[in-house]
């Protein structure tokens, strides 16, 4: 069938949910990072889809969504850099990156 907006939205929400699921269930910290990437990518896909299929208006142009996606990619990259730095220092302190072990703030 001819592809349309809803199909892209479904895919992006699937990506988002899978990514969320990964964040919530992985024990490995880097796995969680991967899940975050999935979420970000799902959101980016959403933006691109809206940029392709919606009419331009006063406040938005044809390319706003794609520009936003570029931002997301850049931010994802920066954020991964920071997250990896945090994981490295965690590993040097705790000798593991299993998030089940990080319960020091338990009440």
């Amino acid at each position, binding site marked *: 069938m001819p592809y349309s907006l809803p199909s892209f939205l479904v895919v992006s929400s699937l990506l988002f949910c899978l990514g*969320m699921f990964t*964040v*919530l*269930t992985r024990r490995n910290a880097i796995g*969680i990072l991967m899940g975050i990437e999935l979420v970000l990518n799902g959101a980016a896909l959403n933006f691109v889809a809206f940029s392709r299929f919606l009419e331009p208006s006063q406040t938005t142009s044809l390319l706003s969504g794609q520009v936003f996606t570029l931002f997301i990619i850049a931010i994802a990259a920066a954020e991964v850099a920071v997250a990896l730095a945090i994981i490295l220092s965690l590993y040097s302190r705790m000798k593991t990156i299993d*998030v*089940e072990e*990080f*319960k*020091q*703030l*338990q*009440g």
Partner: protein
Amino acid sequence: MALALETLISCTAMNTLTDPEIIKRSLWLIPCLPLAGAVINGLLGRRLPARIIHFIGCASIFISFLVSVAGFFTLLGIEEPQQRFLTQSLYQWILTVWHQGSFGLEVAFRLDPLSMVLCLVVTGVGFLIHLYSVGYMAGDESQSRYFAYLNLFTFSMLLLILADNLLLMFVGWEGVGLCSYLLIGFWFTDLEKAQAGMKAFIVNRVGDFGFFVGLMLLFWTLFEGSNGTMTGLGFQQLREAIPLLGTASPILGVGVATWVALLFLVGATGKSAQIPLYVWLPDAMAGPTPVSAFIHAATMVTAGVYMIVRLNFLYVIAPAAMAVVAVVGGVTAFYAATIALTQNDIKRVLAYSTISQLGYMFLAVGVAAFSTGIFHLVTHAFFKALLFLGAGSVIHAVHSNEMQEMGGLKKYMPHTYLTFMVAYLAISGIPPFSGFMSKDEILWATFNSHLPVAGLGKALWALGLLTAGLTAFYMTRLIALTFMGSFRGGSEKEKHLHESPAVMTLPLMVLAVLSAVGGVIGLPAITHLPNLLHDFLGPVLSSHVTSGHQAHAYWLELLLMLISTGVATSGIYLGWLFYVKRPELPGQVAARFASLHRLLFEKYYVDEVYQTLFVRPILKLVALSGRFDLNTIDGAVNLSSRVTTKFAFLIGWEDLKIVDGAVNGLAEIFKRWGAALRHLQTGRVQHYLYSVVLGIFLLSVAMIMF
């Protein structure tokens, strides 16, 4: 010119000062100035220097005296003798109003010739004694307390004298009793002196009880008799209402008037130290000598006499009571004189002498010679105060009251000796000194009296005559032992003997002059000169018998005068014989009549009798009630405290379990909540994120649905 101006000014001043209206409004000053002095010295005295204390004490009385003098001249200035009285009402004290009438008592003062005479005596002699006290009490540590009490006493006495109704007089009556107690026990750290004060107050109280019962009986009878129309107890009203007593029904066969008069007599015997309530006066000598001079010679003890004279209209209608008064007076005079013969303490001799002279005053009023009684009151105030102050001077020098340790003082204390001699001649009844005038008038009135019992008048006259002889004898004995011969107190003391300072000898001299010439106010009729006191007091007294109104009895009066002078002189001679010429005689006589001598020396054992009859039973009652208080009342209190303790245990349990349980339970709830909620915090970020996602999901569902 200047002289005329001066006379004019003094005339106006005199007229203003003696204007009846001004004096009427100033009457309150007479008693209230000493009261102010007492309050100031009493409250602030401890911080004031001695000079100020003395000044306040003496000045208040002196100004009172000046006001009294002004009052005197005012009274003289009133032409009509019946109108010679001034009253000032301060405020309404009691007022009861019912639809048929009212009854009220005011705080009001009355200045009439009778109260005038006594005012002058109290303030005049009082001022002299205050001056003397400045010297006598110098160096004592409680000067302010002394002068405060003395001023308070003067206030009470003036209140008594100036009161216009019986109840206010009673207030003053009790006040003087109180101040007497305070002053007798002035040096209360000495137990004996404190006990003497208590004895005085308690015996006085017995008398006061009689006074009060008499007062109530009088009030009740007059009130009933007047069918409720009596409006007050003022003296004027009483005098007018008195005939109602005659119509009242007799109680136990004796007329009401006699009962009232006798009850008031009980009060008078307590205050004026007559038989049977005189026992406090000799012990009262424990107080400072100026106190003895003032209270127990010149003023308080004369309150009884004053009261009887004030109520002369009552006594005149109760002749039986008058006879009792006369007998009590005469017997007491003789009885006290016999005791005075043997005493060795100089103040005790003077105390018994006072009781004896008061007996003379009672004798006088008992035979309806009221102005004569007042005359003797006045002259006695002069010479007895002088005797006491002189004795104080002697005691001050010798540091002892015992006459055995005195002697030969006339060369060491000439002023004291000379003034003492004047008083001695007065009291012994040597003409023309004041004591002779008044005592002789009493004897003359007694001789001529018509008492219910036939011949009683003559018998009492003989008793009075004998007492006069005894008086002369024991006074001569006192003079001889104190001033004559050689000093027996040891050479150490002899070196320190000296005359008293001027502040003490000046009052002595003034009193000596008064004792010598004071008789001029009551000259006997023989001299054909007016009896000034008798005329002055006349309108106040309803009926009175004094010397000389019987024209034909001049020769009789002269004869009696000669007899009494002879008796006095022989008393003096015997005294001289026994104590100067042949001093071994007293010892011999005492040895021969040993048991009689011991009886007199031990004051007829009356104190011991009273102790057994009254004091011991009352002390037993006191002990009994003390035990009752300890066992019963304290037992009840202790029992209630034990019961409360047991209840307290219950209350404690409740407090512990219930109250604390509630508080602790509340805390427990919070703890458990916290413990439960704690588990939410796992410390794992993934769980937190999970909650966030869940929340978002639920919110979005809610938003889509609603």
